[in-house]
């Protein structure tokens, strides 16, 4: 067995799985609260990647950076998260809010429209071609500490480490927020029973806005992560990422936050091993097969509890 290939694919799978996990969290949070499948979420992720790309251009383009790379990375993250959070809030306010009591199909079709609009507006404004996203040579280099080196052939770069560590930090922060703060408690209450929460004096509108902000901010971070790992951005990148991340959320149990993260990593691993051992054209088929299998065998997801529907 080729261990180098195995470890490389494992690392790539966990890294990309982290990106899916961050996107899946947003899907899961919005679905938990509004029971809405937010198709536009993948495109919010795309916008996040482009915000990061914007800073690279501002600081001299891909290959001639003239500023401290750590500073730029921090700038990219903070602005991508805030920008995407605001975008998510706007989408909620202007596209979904009026449809909250409408038949279920209405917000779904609106979400399709928002996704399509964002994708094509990005194509108009930013151009359809792929943009290079590779500002920091050292990020892509293999990790080396005090003379200790990885075996040659294993690809474990600083970018991988940053992505996984960043995802863990964001997940810990999110867990703290949802479990320990007043707003987090309100979020769980609204997700459990919106009407009862409203009767208890919870400002449901505010909770929903906060949910969209946080979910979209996580997608923005995922966009930058994806950018520093895969080195390119393009306007339609959100479509497949959104599809895979939604699958991750379903696999983990939609509405269940730890489940979404686990589902994301699982999908990332499935994608990377199928690319490494079969061929990249199979990855969609394999992820689709996982989705169908989970839906047939365990519709509530691997970590979700079976939903009891009240009538």
């Amino acid at each position, binding site marked *: 067995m080729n261990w180098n290939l195995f470890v490389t694919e494992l690392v790539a799978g966990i890294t990309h799985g982290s990106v899916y996990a961050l996107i899946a969290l947003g899907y899961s949070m919005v679905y938990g609260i509004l029971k809405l499948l937010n198709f536009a979420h993948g495109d919010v992720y795309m916008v996040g990647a482009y915000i990061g790309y914007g800073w690279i251009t501002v600081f001299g383009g891909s290959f001639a950076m003239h500023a401290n790379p750590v500073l730029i990375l921090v700038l990219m993250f903070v602005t991508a998260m805030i920008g995407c959070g605001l975008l998510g809030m706007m989408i909620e306010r202007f596209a979904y809010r009026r449809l909250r009591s409408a038949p279920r199909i209405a917000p779904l*079709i609106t979400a399709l429209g928002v996704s399509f609009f964002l994708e094509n507006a990005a194509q108009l404004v930013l151009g359809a071609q792929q943009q290079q996203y590779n500002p920091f040579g050292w990020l892509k280099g293999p990790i080396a500490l005090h003379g200790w080196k990885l075996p040659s052939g294993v690809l474990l770069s600083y970018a991988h480490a940053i992505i996984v560590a960043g995802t863990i930090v964001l997940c810990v922060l999110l867990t703290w927020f949802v479990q320990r703060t007043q707003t987090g408690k309100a979020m769980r209450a609204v997700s459990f029973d919106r009407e009862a929460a409203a009767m208890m004096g919870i400002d449901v509108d505010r909770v929903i806005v906060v949910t969209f902000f946080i979910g979209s901010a996580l997608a923005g971070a995922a966009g930058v992560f994806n950018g520093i790992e895969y080195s390119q951005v393009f306007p339609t990148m959100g479509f497949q990422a959104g599809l895979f991340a939604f699958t991750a959320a379903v696999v983990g149990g939609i509405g269940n936050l730890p489940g979404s993260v686990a589902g994301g990593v699982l999908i990332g691993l499935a994608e990377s091993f199928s690319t490494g051992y079969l061929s990249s054209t199979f990855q969609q088929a394999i992820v689709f097969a996982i989705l169908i299998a989970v839906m047939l065998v365990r519709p509530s997801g691997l970590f979700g509890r079976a939903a009891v529907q009240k009538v």
Partner: protein
Amino acid sequence: MSEQNLPGRPDEAQVPKVGVDAWVATHAERVHATRLQQWIAQVPRPAFYLAFGIAAALLPAITNDGYVIRVGFDTVLYMLLALGLNIAVGYAGLLDLGYVAFFGIGAYGYAMLSSPKFGIHLDTLFVIPIAIIGTAIVGFLVAIPSRRLLGDYLAIVTLFFLQLFVTVTQNGNKISVLGLTRGYDVTGGPNGIPDLDNWDLAGLKIGSLNGYYYAMLVTFLLCLGAVYLIDQSRTGRAWKSLREDPLAAELMGMPVNRLKILAFAIGAGIGGLAGTLFAGLNGAVFSADFDVPTLIIVYAMLILGGAGSIGGVILGALVVNVSLEVLRTPGHATWIFYVALLAGLLAKLRPWRVLAVVLGGTIAFGYAVHAVATSAWPSGVHGEPSIGGWLGRGLSGWQLEPTQPRNIGNWAFIALVLAVLVLTLLQGWWRRLALIPTLYLASFVWDNRLVVEPSITRLILIGVILIVLMNARPQGLLGSARVEIV
């Protein structure tokens, strides 16, 4: 109808009879209808379909222009597609996002069975049933995993299915069994399948564009009749009842799952049928024709016309396809833009004083901006307007035309989106005042940026149509029924 004849609300004086909500039952009488609307309501629906059929059949008699006939063919094709989608979305309330994949399967099925690709040249009379039944079976298989689940899951499974279909057809030129055998060429990959046979219905060969137009029209009218009959039948009523309230339908003893899967499969079958016609006329199939943009366009047609309404399907496809076609020529597109803007203002701004203030304000605002820009920013007024003629000359004195419109146009586009969003938050006179610069900005963005890139602009417009319609008029132009997804 006078004011006194209106029935009061049931909770006022009279108590409704058990099982009958009088207020709801008399809804139609209370709706204020003009003489024309009353007359239209009395004409049986099939008469309209027949009238449409006759009018459409006259198109080749009116014009010899191949381009116009081709647009007519595409429009009727979209009508057929929207008709099939309407069964799943409008009748049964299932959000089918893999619909164009069935269209593609029909087209690829036709291509494989009547081309030199595999040396098979079947009679089209056999290919059509194979395509319809084959796609319906695939639709059945796709619907099965999500039959017990929420409609949202069906949406994501079908969307994934569409994505998979595109990937498979794009990479289907080297399909091997688990990487063990040599690669077989099944779908031609990115090159598609060329050199398809023409339709051959037991010796009746269809070779010309007009021939295909009539074949398309006849097929559509037959399907329209069939769908109308299904709509009126027990099954049609069952679909609508399960769309309105699946729980109540189930309690009434309806086989909800079977009905849903049936609707899904029939819709898929119609998609497959449309695919055979599309492939027959084009003479080649490419996977790019069966991707998400096509799906969204068909959805926009369905939603614009009104999901659940057969007449809405015809109207929606006609309006969307013809306007998208007109948008291709910048000269026409600019005309359409200003006419549509004016029509929208005429319809929305009442009384006429408001309209006069907004229109006059916009024109004055434009000249003021233009005058300031002439001295402050000379390169902002020396570009070319997108259109010639007197409209273009008028525009060049009023609208800013930068010599390098690309960058500023992009920023203006973003500003326009934000301005429109802010506009929806304002009320009363503030909104009317804010409308003036927004209109000017819209005209600027259109003239300098959107009209230059028609292929992206049409897709952006489709997205906007979906968002705005769903928020402002979810029932579309002709629909009345509410659509519930389960």
